[in-house]
């Protein structure tokens, strides 16, 4: 093909693309529907203030949104204000009646999941049962110098820019989900249910055993799988990270969520860790931390050159929604005023300068649902008896009025 002919073809294609993108539009009505949904998710007091403020403007100039949309919005706002003023309370699960009324509880809360449970560090619950796989083992490597007792805290760091961070929710899976997952890794036969509820469950595949655990609410820990080969799978001297990825890939278990991979070694025991993260709407990620503030996710256990287990969270559908978050100043105040996560403390209480802070996600579980909630993880170190200890404080970012 001559250059000239190719150039002409590409120019024609560019024009077609211009037209294609310029003429592709959503169906009629979508613009108004979405606008109303956005309005309905704003805090009630904001909508009332703006409704009052814009009442005059509505009649002075052309409306920014269609009059039909404004009319429906006013019905929603007025209906909600009547409910608030009457003292009536609807349960967050109430879903009957006209659409505007049914949405009132969510609108009052500012988010659609209702009041959230509060994530917290639970060092006292540790050690976790051995069944939770390599990730829990990794936590034992790292937690020896963590301190959760009382301390005199001072903030000496720099806060990050506030970021938008939604709340993610999963519903506790049933046996069907577990069976489907087992089937996807080739272990759908010989299921051995170990309890009346169907969980935990063990499945047998060709040369491996798969165990699926339900949510462990006390930690909490989301539903987890552990896949253990019948005999250790040799890494054949390969790079351990590559060997772990190859092993996971055989079962299509390579994490689909954002992650960072690290390799931890203690003697002949190696853990290849895929730390789970959540994508933030404005860019970047925030890592998931466990009950002692440690990153976790999926992992592969290697002992003396042989892979003997892989574990990770059961793939579950996540719903996302936004909640009103506290400001950085409030977060610092809450960190400094936080109660110790453990009662056992060094006496006198050490002075700790909290110097670092990271936006993280922490899991809280209630009413059969798990919530990944944004939080700030503050940390600082101090010396005691010649040892360096790390103090961690987890501050949930969802506004306290939206938490149960």
């Amino acid at each position, binding site marked *: 093909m001559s250059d000239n002919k190719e150039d002409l073809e590409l120019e024609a294609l560019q024009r077609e693309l211009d037209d294609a993108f310029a003429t592709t539009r959503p169906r009629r009505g979508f613009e108004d529907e979405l606008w109303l949904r956005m309005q309905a998710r704003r805090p009630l007091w904001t909508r009332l203030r703006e409704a009052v403020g814009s009442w005059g403007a509505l009649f002075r100039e052309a409306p920014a949104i269609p009059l039909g949309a404004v009319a429906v919005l006013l019905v929603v706002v007025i209906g909600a204000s009547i409910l608030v003023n009457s003292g009536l309370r609807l349960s967050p699960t109430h879903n009957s009646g006209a659409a505007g009324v049914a949405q009132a509880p969510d609108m009052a809360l500012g988010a659609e999941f209702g009041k959230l449970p509060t994530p917290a560090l639970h060092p006292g619950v540790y050690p976790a049962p051995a069944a939770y796989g390599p990730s829990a083992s990794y936590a034992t490597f790292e937690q020896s110098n963590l301190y959760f007792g009382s301390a005199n805290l001072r903030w000496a760091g720099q806060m990050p820019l506030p970021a938008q961070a939604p709340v993610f929710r999963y519903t506790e899976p049933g046996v069907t989900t577990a069976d*489907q997952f087992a089937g996807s890794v080739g272990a759908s036969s010989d299921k051995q249910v170990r309890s009346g509820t169907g969980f935990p469950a063990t499945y047998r595949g060709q040369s491996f055993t798969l165990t699926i655990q339900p949510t462990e609410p006390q930690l909490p820990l989301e539903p987890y799988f552990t896949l253990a080969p019948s005999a250790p799978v040799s890494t054949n001297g390969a790079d351990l990270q590559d060997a772990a990825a190859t092993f996971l890939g055989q079962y299509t278990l390579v994490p689909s969520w954002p992650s960072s991979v690290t390799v931890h070694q203690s003697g002949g025991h190696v853990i290849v860790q895929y730390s789970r993260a959540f994508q933030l*709407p404005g860019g970047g990620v925030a890592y998931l931390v466990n009950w002692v503030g440690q990153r976790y996710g999926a992992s592969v256990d290697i002992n003396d050159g042989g892979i003997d287990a892989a574990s990770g969270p059961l793939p579950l559908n996540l719903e996302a929604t936004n909640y009103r978050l506290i400001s950085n100043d409030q977060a610092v105040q809450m960190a400094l005023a936080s109660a110790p996560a453990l009662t056992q403390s060094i006496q006198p209480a050490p002075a700790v300068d909290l110097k670092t802070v990271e936006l993280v996600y922490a899991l809280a579980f209630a009413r059969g649902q798990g919530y990944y909630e944004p939080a700030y993880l503050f940390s600082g170190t101090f010396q005691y008896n010649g040892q360096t200890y790390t103090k961690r404080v987890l501050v949930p970012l969802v506004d306290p009025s939206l938490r149960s």
Partner: protein
Amino acid sequence: MAADRPPFEDVYRDFLGRIYAYVRAQVRTSADAEDITAQVFMNAYQAYDRFEPRNLTPAAWLFRIARNATLDHFRASGRRDRLQRTIEHQPEAEEDPATMAEERIQYRALLAHVAGLPERQRNAISLRHSGLSFEEVGHLMSCSEDAAKMLYHRALKTLRDAVAGQEQAVE
């Protein structure tokens, strides 16, 4: 509100169509495109108080949110769809004919070809023809302006070959 930040309603009305078209060129169905577009503007609405027009144009800001939301969609749905198809031996979901009739797309086949491009090429084409400059495309895709141009032209040739391949197959 900052003096130089336009009212969100204006941004919404100016960009809804463009964002929808960008998203629609990435995904298989209009339902997915609507869901993602809704998520984009919900997120943008929540974050608008923190948007700094001095650092970023509204277009670059919104398309960054749209790109992230689309990537999130693929991450969330990819594993679920693969698992579902493995279990049920089902083909990929097809668009409902009634919905197709309702949708306002004149160049459906061309957009389907765009959707079939590799992720970075697809984004380069979609962002560029959504009205972004190569500098903005590069910024969004974490590469230089020149790299964005090269990526775009490579994508354009891949697209041309795909379209030509289908036309030959039809003949």
